[in-house]
C-alpha cells in the first residue's frame, strides 16, 4: 500500500543516498531478504507448479505439463477426447469476480471519498481521531469480522429481527448467500484502503484552489468535479487499485457470505489447495492468470501516471 501512495508524494533528496553508498547494500539486506523470501520465491514456486502434473493424492508430480492452462481455457469433453471448445466456467467466474470487485470499488469510492474529504477538512488536531475511528475494525481479524457480518445479515439475524419487530418488513429479507452479501463483505473489508490514500491526497490539496474556483464563478459541485477530484486523482486511483485488486482475489467474503453458487476466483483457488481433492497445478495456473491480469491493469495505471507527469500535452 505504502508504495502506491508514495508514488504520488515527493521523492526524497537523492544526494543523501550517495553518501552512504558503501554501507547501503548491507542496510538494504533485510529488505531484499523479505522481498525475496516472501515475494519472489513464492511467485516462482507458483509459476513452476502451474506447469507441473497433478498428483491425485494432492501435491504435484514433477513432470512438465500444460494441462492446467488447457483445463482453464478449453473444454475437451468428459473424457478429454473431443475437439476443444472454449471452456466458459472459469472465464465466467473471472468475469463475475471482476464485476464484484468493480462494484465493491465503486461503493467504496462513493462512501470513502466523502469520508476522506470530511476527515481532511477537520481541524488538524482532530483528524487523527477520525482516522483512528476508521481503523478500529482492523483490530479484529478479517475472518472474525466476516463471520460476524454473516451473523448480522442472516435471515434470523439482528437486522432482520429488528426490521420485522419494527413492522418495516413482513418477512425476513434474505441477504445471506447473495451477491449483495458479498458486496457488503468486500465493502466492509476494504473501505479503509479507499479512505486512507484519498485522505492523504486531500490533506495535501491546496484549498486555495477551491477558493480560486469559487472566485471564478464555480458552484460547489463544479469546483468538486473540475478542480478537487482532478487534483486528488492520484489518491483516488491508488484507493481504487487497493480495493479492486484484493476484492478480485478475495475468498473469505465470497465463501462465508456468498455461498456456493456465488463462486469467485479466491474460492476457486482455495478449493484447489484444500484437502485431497485439490488440483495444485490448476490452482497455481488460476493464480498466475489472475496475477497476469492484475499486472496488466497496473501497467496501464503506471503508463497513465507517467503520461500525466510528463504533462504539457
Amino acid at each position, binding site marked *: 500500500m505504502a508504495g502506491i501512495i508514495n508514488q504520488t508524494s515527493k521523492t526524497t533528496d537523492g544526494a543523501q543516498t550517495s553518501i552512504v553508498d558503501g554501507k547501503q547494500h548491507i542496510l538494504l539486506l533485510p529488505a531484499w531478504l523479505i522481498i525475496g523470501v516472501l515475494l519472489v520465491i513464492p511467485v516462482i514456486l507458483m509459476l513452476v507448479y502451474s506447469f507441473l502434473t497433478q498428483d491425485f493424492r494432492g501435491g504435484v508430480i514433477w513432470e512438465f505439463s500444460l494441462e492446467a492452462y488447457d483445463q482453464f481455457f478449453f473444454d475437451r469433453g468428459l473424457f478429454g477426447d473431443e475437439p476443444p471448445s472454449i471452456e466458459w466456467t472459469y472465464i465466467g467466474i473471472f468475469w463475475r469476480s471482476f464485476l464484484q470487485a468493480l462494484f465493491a470499488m465503486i461503493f467504496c469510492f462513493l462512501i470513502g471519498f466523502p469520508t476522506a474529504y470530511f476527515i481532511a477538512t477537520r481541524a488538524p488536531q482532530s483528524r487523527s481521531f477520525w482516522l483512528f475511528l476508521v481503523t478500529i475494525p482492523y483490530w479484529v481479524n478479517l475472518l472474525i469480522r466476516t463471520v460476524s457480518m454473516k451473523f448480522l445479515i442472516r435471515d434470523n439475524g439482528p437486522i432482520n429481527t429488528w426490521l420485522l419487530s419494527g413492522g418495516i418488513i413482513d418477512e425476513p429479507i434474505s441477504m445471506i448467500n447473495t451477491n449483495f452479501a458479498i458486496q457488503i463483505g468486500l465493502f466492509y473489508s476494504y473501505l479503509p484502503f479507499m479512505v486512507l490514500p484519498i485522505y492523504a491526497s486531500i490533506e495535501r490539496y*491546496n484549498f*486555495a*484552489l477551491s*477558493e*480560486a*474556483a*469559487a*472566485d*471564478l*464563478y*464555480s*458552484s460547489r459541485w*463544479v469546483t468538486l468535479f473540475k*478542480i478537487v477530484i*482532478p*487534483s486528488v*486523482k492520484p489518491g483516488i486511483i491508488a484507493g481504487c487499485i487497493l480495493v479492486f485488486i484484493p476484492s478480485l482475489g478475495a475468498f473469505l467474503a465470497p465463501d462465508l457470505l456468498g455461498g456456493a453458487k456465488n463462486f469467485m476466483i479466491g474460492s476457486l483457488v482455495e478449493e484447489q489447495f484444500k484437502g485431497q481433492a485439490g488440483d495444485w497445478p490448476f490452482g497455481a495456473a488460476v493464480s498466475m492468470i489472475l496475477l497476469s491480469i492484475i499486472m496488466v491493469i497496473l501497467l496501464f495505471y503506471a503508463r497513465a501516471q507517467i503520461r500525466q507527469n510528463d*504533462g*504539457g500535452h
Partner: protein
Amino acid sequence: MDKAKTANNNKTHAIDILSVTKIYPHRTHPVTALNDISFAIEDNEFFTLLGPSGCGKTTLLRMIGGFEGITKGQIQLYGEDISTLQPNQRPINTVFQQYALFPHLTVFENVAFGLKRLGRDRAFIQKQTEAMLELIRMADFAHRKPNQLSGGQQQRVALARALAPQPKVLLLDEPLSALDLKLRQAMREELKDIQKKTGITFIFVTHDQEEALTMSDRIAVMSNGEVQQIGTATDIYDHPINHFVATFIGEANILSASVTKINKNSIMATLAAGGGSVEVATDLAMTKGQKISLMIRPERVKIGKASRAKSALSGVVQSISYLGTDTQLHVSLNARQETELNTGQSNGEIIIARQQNHGDGGSPFHKGDAVSVTIAENALRILQD
C-alpha cells in the same frame, strides 16, 4: 474618515465599506481583526491597503471577495449590498497570494476558466483568453502547465485569469511578495499599466510601503484592525496624521514640543530638546501650553557648521552612514543654548538627517563634529496621537 461616512449614499463608489467589524470567533481568544472601519473606494481607482503583517488587510480583502463573513456592518459594490453573496455571485475576481493556479489545467485553460463558468460562447472565450495572454505577454506559453512556468510567469497568468471575466473590481493580495526584487519592480510598472489599460478598479494589499507609494492612486494605511489614514502617496508621506503613519511610511523624527503662541493658521512651539522656537502651520484647535508631537522627515533636516546663531539648534554628530544616493547622520541635540550650558553635553535626543550625495566624496562631517541643525520652513507636522 468623515469624508467616507458622508459619501455612503453616493452610488458612483466602486466599493463602500460601512462600519465593518470582523471578529474571528474562538472559545477563549476571539480575534478582532477589523474594528468598525468605514471608507469608500472610487471607480477606476488603484487603491492600496498598506499596513504591517497582521493588521487585517487580508481579512478585509477576503470579505470583499466573499470568502470571509462579516461580523457587523455592510459592504456595497456600486451602491448594492453584496454582504450576503457567495464568492461566485460577486463580479469581483482575486489574484491570490500564492497564485492558486489550477495545476492540472494549461495556461490557456486557467485563463479561460472563469469565462467558461459564466457560460460565454466559445468564440468569445477564445478571443478574450487570447487577448488576456497577449496583454501579459504569455501567448507563447498558452499550452504549458503552471509548474512549467517561472514565478513571475505564474504571477502574470494569475493576473490574466482574474482579469479575463472583466470583473468590476480586482483584488490583489500581496501579489508581488514572492518575486525577487528586480522582477517585483518590473511588475509594479506592468500592474499599474494594466490597471490603466483595463480601467478596472484595483484593490491592492501590501506591507511594502515603497510598493504602495509608487503604484497607488490612494492608500489606506492600516494598523491593528483600523484605518489610520487614507490619502494619496504625497498626502501620506508629507502629511501623516499620527505617530503610526509617520513612522510606518519612510523615516521620521518625532520631536516633543509645547505650544507657546496661537496664530491664525499656525502656532509657535518650543522644542523640548534644544529649546528652539518653531512655527508650525496647522488648522487644528490648540491651546497654549499644550504638549504636542512634531514630525520632520530626515531629508528636511539641514546640518551645517556649528554657529552661534540663536535660531539654529546645535548638536554633535554621533554616526554617519553612507547610503549611496544619500548620507544619513545621527545627531544628538544639545541642551538649550539660552542657558549657556552648551558644554557639548548631549541631552540624549537624537535627530536623523539625510543629505543628498553629489559624488564628491560624501559628507563633509565626521563623527564627533559639533554642528548646527536647521529645520526647513514648513517641514514640521503636528501629529495627533
